[in-house]
């Protein structure tokens, strides 16, 4: 059997100022998984994602990417892409140039890079705005560009930190459907952070419910992968049931976070 995409064992993070961002966390992400992290604000979701992206170094524990270490991330079959809460585009560059950025940094030749950037933009339905500038696009379109910039590297793991938090409900639902297609049809392994329970219920094959102070995994919840994630599912009783069960877990996690805080006070 091949090694998992991600494997975290006892990963901890204590910040230099003494704040305990994460107490030991174990997490395994297999190929094709859509894992969602959900939990109250400050429970360490972003911290966990940044640790995985090697933007933070863990204070303890073991972490491996495709069974290896971070040095090999970026090679073929081990590509990782990150989508932030904000689109995080370069305002001075055209959409095409923004999407091409990761390829440019890898020194992929211009013609190939342009072709792949256009293909990535077409995948998110934005093939017609390549020569526009970010300031000319709406928030939802910018977020799509950000996703295209992640897809252009043909990632084997996509990390997303509350990518649609700033968008309206309608736009968010459309983008969620696109994300579901990318994962369940194209097989893109995704680790997703959200505040929104409905988003977690709609997208995930597994939900990790986190609690705060210190950040930890409180519970996990599996969702049938074979469900078709479409508009019909969103209106189904099955979806309502999943949402309810997740709500209970989340309520539990929040209560525990509060108790921990009171005990400390």
């Amino acid at each position, binding site marked *: 059997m091949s090694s998992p995409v991600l494997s975290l064992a006892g990963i901890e993070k204590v910040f230099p100022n003494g704040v305990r961002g994460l107490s030991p966390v174990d997490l395994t992400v297999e190929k094709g998984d859509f894992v969602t992290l959900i939990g109250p604000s400050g429970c360490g979701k972003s911290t966990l994602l940044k640790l995985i992206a090697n933007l933070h170094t863990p204070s303890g524990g073991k972490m491996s990417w495709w069974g290896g270490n971070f040095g090999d991330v970026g090679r073929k079959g081990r590509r990782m892409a990150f989508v*932030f809460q904000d689109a*995080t585009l*370069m305002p001075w560059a055209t959409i095409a140039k923004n999407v091409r*950025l990761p390829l440019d*940094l890898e020194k992929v030749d211009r013609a190939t890079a342009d072709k792949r950037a256009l293909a990535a933009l077409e995948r998110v339905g934005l093939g017609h705005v390549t020569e526009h500038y970010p*300031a000319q696009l709406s928030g939802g379109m910018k977020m799509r560009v950000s996703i295209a910039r992640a897809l252009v590297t043909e990632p084997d793991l996509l990390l997303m930190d509350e990518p649609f938090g700033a968008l309206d409900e309608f736009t968010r639902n459309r983008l969620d459907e696109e994300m579901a297609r990318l994962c369940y049809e194209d097989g893109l392994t995704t680790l997703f952070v959200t505040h929104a329970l409905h988003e977690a219920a709609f997208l995930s094959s597994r939900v990790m419910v986190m609690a705060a102070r210190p950040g930890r995994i409180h519970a996990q919840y599996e969702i049938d992968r074979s469900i078709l994630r479409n508009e019909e599912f969103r209106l189904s009783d099955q979806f309502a049931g999943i949402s309810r069960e997740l709500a209970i877990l989340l309520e539990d996690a929040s209560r525990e976070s509060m108790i921990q805080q009171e005990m400390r006070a």
Partner: protein
Amino acid sequence: MMSSRTFSLLAPVTLGIIILGIWEGICRFWHIPPYLMPSPSAIWRALMLDGVALLHALLITLEITFAALIAAVVGGVLVAFLLVQSPLIERCLMPYVVIMQVTPIVAIAPLIIILIHNTPLALTACAALVAIFPVISNTLQGLRSVDPDLAAYFQMHKASRLQTLSRLRIPSALPMFMAGLRIATGLSLVGAIVAEFVAGTGGNSAGLAYQILQSGFQMDIPRMFAALFLITVAGLVLYAAAASLQRFALRHRS
């Protein structure tokens, strides 16, 4: 209806014309002698009479202004890049940058003029010294104003130092730099004129400040005003040029 742009141009121009009219009227009605307060028409006559000499002087001042601006921009950007390299370098150098800034140019100008024998060069140095500080501080702040998420993105994609500099830091610094450039443009002109005043250079390589000094000695007040008028026009043109350059450079960002 008038567009707001036309209005914002028309309103101050109308006010200017009214003020000029009142000024002219007061001078004529009370027969105020031109050595106390010349009327606008007297100033205009002086400008027409001595236009060639004044324009020549303006050109000399502008040459110094541009040379100083270029020196300030090149020097300021280099210093900013140096400062941003390491906190240690910044700690060591920053106090001197500040000392340079807080010392009034009028006080150091005589020293510079004695040290540098070539007068135009000395004047340029003085003006550049006045203009360099906003370039340094704005470029420095600009180089630091990188979006932290974008910086994380570059780091995650294992971008080299050079790639991060050319694709992230420099473009991120551009808005602050352009604002600094705009301030520096105005200051170069101020610096050039202040330095000319201190140097008091005569001969045919004398700038507008010297023309003002000389007109003062000769009690030729209309000519003084005419020179002042030219400086103001030059300042306005420089300001507008710098502002449109700034707008052009940042046209895609909102």
